[in-house]
Structures are given as structure tokens and as C-alpha cells.
């Protein structure tokens, strides 16, 4: 069963052609890493998957709903599709525990005791149970991002989107966040689409690697083909050689 299907999707910002003829299918439980130079449209693409950006034409099916259709209720999609942002976007006016509990309470009407227990379990699993009462402003970047992942997981989504989750972090924080993401990936039913430059993570976790440039998908390979074989696309090869040597 496919979780995400792009069919001939086009996206414009005014005159700027942000996404050109995107065709991409991601199956349930698949882990896909999306890479490409900045301005290539990877963030735009991932943001279309939960409706933060609308697409102008084509068909975009997520969990069975067509996001290109204006009548589609985005809230229904977002219940099952979580998102982790580069800058965390934790609720600045809520404690860590409230950050995790508010959406399940308001959206899923999860009973309070159960909600709290699940939230604490999640905090425990990301190693931050002692931060439950803190405000986001009191956390480091790495801690914030782990809380943000816990917040997404609290909704028990079928699919998680990660938009450069480690790009804003100090180097020594990155591994903590990647480890949490690897734990999430250990759940074989969880679909993951990850925009990242962390090639170690891609090698370890991804099933497929998709390369984008200029708003187009230029390469879509099994992980083994991409890293151990060679990308067929010239720009993908160049890009790969540059980031691997770093």
C-alpha cells in the first residue's frame, strides 16, 4: 500500500516554478531520504505532503486523500502525518509536557491520564523525562528537537516528515537527535520522509534516496544503488561526491 503518491505535481510561487513534474511513490513503512542542493525544492516538496504548501496541478495522494483537491480536509491528513521542522517550532507558551499533550487532547480527545502517561513514556524514550516541566526557551537545540519528535509521535502518526531536523543544531547535539530518529525508524510500519544532509543516517536507515535539483527529481534509487553503485544522473554524482568528502 502506498502512503504518498505524487503524480505529475506542479507547484509555483508566482512566476517561480518550485516543483516540476514530480512523480514519486512512497509505500507504507518505507524510509526515504531526500537530498539536493539548497533551493532545489526539497523543503517545498516535503511541505506539500501535509498541506503546508498547496500544489497547483497534478495529483498528490497522502494516506488516500488528494491534497491537490481544494475540498480535502487538511486536518484529517495531519492527524496521521506528523512533521519535524528545522527550527523545532515547539510551542513557546507551553511546557515540554504540554507541548506533547495538547494535540492528542484537543484533536484525538485522548483521556487525560492516558495522554499524560504516553507523553511521559515518550519523554523517557527520548531521554528527557526530567525536562517535563521546562519551557522550550530553557532547552538546547538538540533537546528541543527530541521533544519535537516526541510531540509528533504522541499523535501516533502513520507517517513522519523531517525537514532538515539537524541543520540548525550544534555538531555535538546531532547524534542524539539522529539516534532518536533511528529508534523511530526501527518501527517497520512507520513511513518516513527525511530531508537531510546526514549521509551516515541515510546509509543506515534509508530504503531509498531521492535526489532533487531545480525543482525536479533527478534520481530515485535504492540506497545500495545510490551509495555503493553510482547515481546515473551527473548532478547527483557531483553532489554525492561533494558531501561524502566532507
Amino acid at each position, binding site marked *: 500500500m502506498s502512503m504518498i503518491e505524487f503524480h505529475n505535481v506542479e507547484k509555483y510561487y508566482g512566476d517561480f516554478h518550485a516543483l516540476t513534474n514530480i512523480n514519486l511513490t512512497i509505500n507504507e513503512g518505507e524510509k526515504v531520504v531526500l537530498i539536493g542542493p539548497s533551493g532545489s525544492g526539497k523543503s517545498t516538496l516535503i511541505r506539500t505532503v501535509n498541506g*503546508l504548501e498547496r500544489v497547483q496541478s497534478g495529483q498528490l495522494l497522502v494516506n488516500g486523500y488528494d491534497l491537490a483537491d481544494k475540498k480535502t480536509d487538511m486536518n484529517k491528513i495531519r*492527524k496521521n502525518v506528523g512533521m519535524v*521542522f528545522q527550527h523545532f*517550532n515547539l*510551542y513557546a507558551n507551553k511546557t515540554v509536557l504540554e507541548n506533547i499533550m495538547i494535540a492528542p487532547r*484537543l484533536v484525538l480527545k485522548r483521556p487525560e491520564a492516558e495522554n499524560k502517561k504516553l507523553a511521559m513514556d515518550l519523554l523517557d524514550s527520548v531521554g528527557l523525562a526530567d525536562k517535563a516541566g521546562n519551557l522550550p526557551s530553557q532547552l538546547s537545540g538538540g533537546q528541543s528537537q527530541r521533544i519535537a519528535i516526541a510531540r509528533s509521535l504522541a499523535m501516533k502518526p502513520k507517517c513522519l516528515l523531517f525537514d532538515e531536523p539537524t541543520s540548525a543544531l550544534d555538531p555535538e547535539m546531532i547524534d542524539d537527535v539522529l539516534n532518536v530518529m533511528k529508534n523511530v525508524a526501527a518501527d517497520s510500519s512507520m513511513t518516513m520522509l527525511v530531508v537531510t544532509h546526514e549521509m551516515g543516517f541515510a546509509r543506515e536507515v534509508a530504503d531509498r534516496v531521492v535526489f532533487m535539483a531545480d525543482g525536479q527529481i533527478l534520481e530515485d534509487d535504492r540506497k545500495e544503488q545510490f551509495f555503493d553503485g553510482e547515481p546515473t544522473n551527473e548532478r547527483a554524482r557531483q553532489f554525492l561526491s561533494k558531501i561524502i568528502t566532507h
Partner: protein
Amino acid sequence: MVYILTHYWSELIQGLGYTLLSSVIALVFSTVIGTMFAIFEVLPNHAMRIIGRIYIEIFRNIPLLVIAMFFYVIIPMYVAKIDGFTAGTIGLTIYTSSFIAETVRAGIQSVDNGQMEGARSNGLTYWQAMRYIVLPQAFKIVIPPLGNQFINLVKNSSVLAFVAGFDLMYQGNSIASLSLDTINSYVVVGLFYLVITLPLSYYMQHLEKRLAN
């Protein structure tokens, strides 16, 4: 001054009461209406934004006295019998709400867009995100300018004097003409306004400090 105070005490207290009552009613409703139009102005819906814009630009740019007179004269002629106090308070509410709308809108727009995006991606509806995440942060930011609006509101309630609203200013005018002691009459009235505005001012500062932590 003591003569004015002792001789016209009951008129002054009555005036203070009407000024307070009008101010409290206007404060509550202008905050609610102002916030509503502030939200109109940031909605994705284009038509709603225009409605918000028109409301604010009209009532922010007409003198309060004209708005109060409109309600005092026109409404009783064509719609319903209302007294000067009601007309003045409605005018004050609408006038102030346009300023509060602008203040709150600025507050909402100063909250990082990531807060709304985070909430929406988390599954919250637009209104849930507004109510629980964006508005609380926006209000925290706009408490100082909102405090200014509230103090202006109390002072602007003196417009009631022109529409027979029996407020402090109205009583001041009448005391001045009865006692023929113009200076002391208005000094006393001024002091009575301070009795309302100074505590309000200190309370807003206190709120600002408390929420800063």
C-alpha cells in the same frame, strides 16, 4: 478645592461611577471586538481581511466625538431609543476596538509563523492553533501598548459629557457652572481620573513584569 469636594461629593462619586462603568464595559467589549477584527485581518480568507481592514480604517480615522454623536443622534431617530450613556459607551467601544485590533494584529504577526505551522502539522485546527498557541503569545507581546489603549479609553470616556452621559467630565462641567469655581472644579475632576488611570497603569506594568518571567 475642599469646598468642591465636600459640597459636590455625591455628584463626583456618581460621575466616577458612570465613568468607571462605561470604561469597564468598553474595555471588555472593545478587547473582544478588537481581537475579533485583528483575527479577521490575519485570516487566509481575502474577503475577511478586507472586512477587517475597512472596519479598522473607518473607526480609527473618525473623531471619537463624531462616532459618539452618531450613536446619540442617529440611532434614536431610526433604530432604537438609547440614552446618552449607552450611545457614548457604544461609540467609545467601537472607536477603541479599532485601535485594539491594530495592536493585537501587530502582536499576532510578531509571533513566529513556525508556531502556527508547528500547531497545524501537529493536527490542531486553525482556530485551535490561534486560541491555544498564537493568541496567548500575541497578548503577552502587546500588553504594554494594550495598557496604553486602556488608559486612553478611560480618558476618552469623557466624551460622554457631550452626549449627556453623566460621567465625571459631565459632572465637572456642571459643578464648574454651579460653583463658578472653574479651576478647582476641573482640578478635582482631573484627580478623579487619576484615581482610575494610575492604578490601571500600575496594574498593566505589574502584568507585564509577571508575564515576562
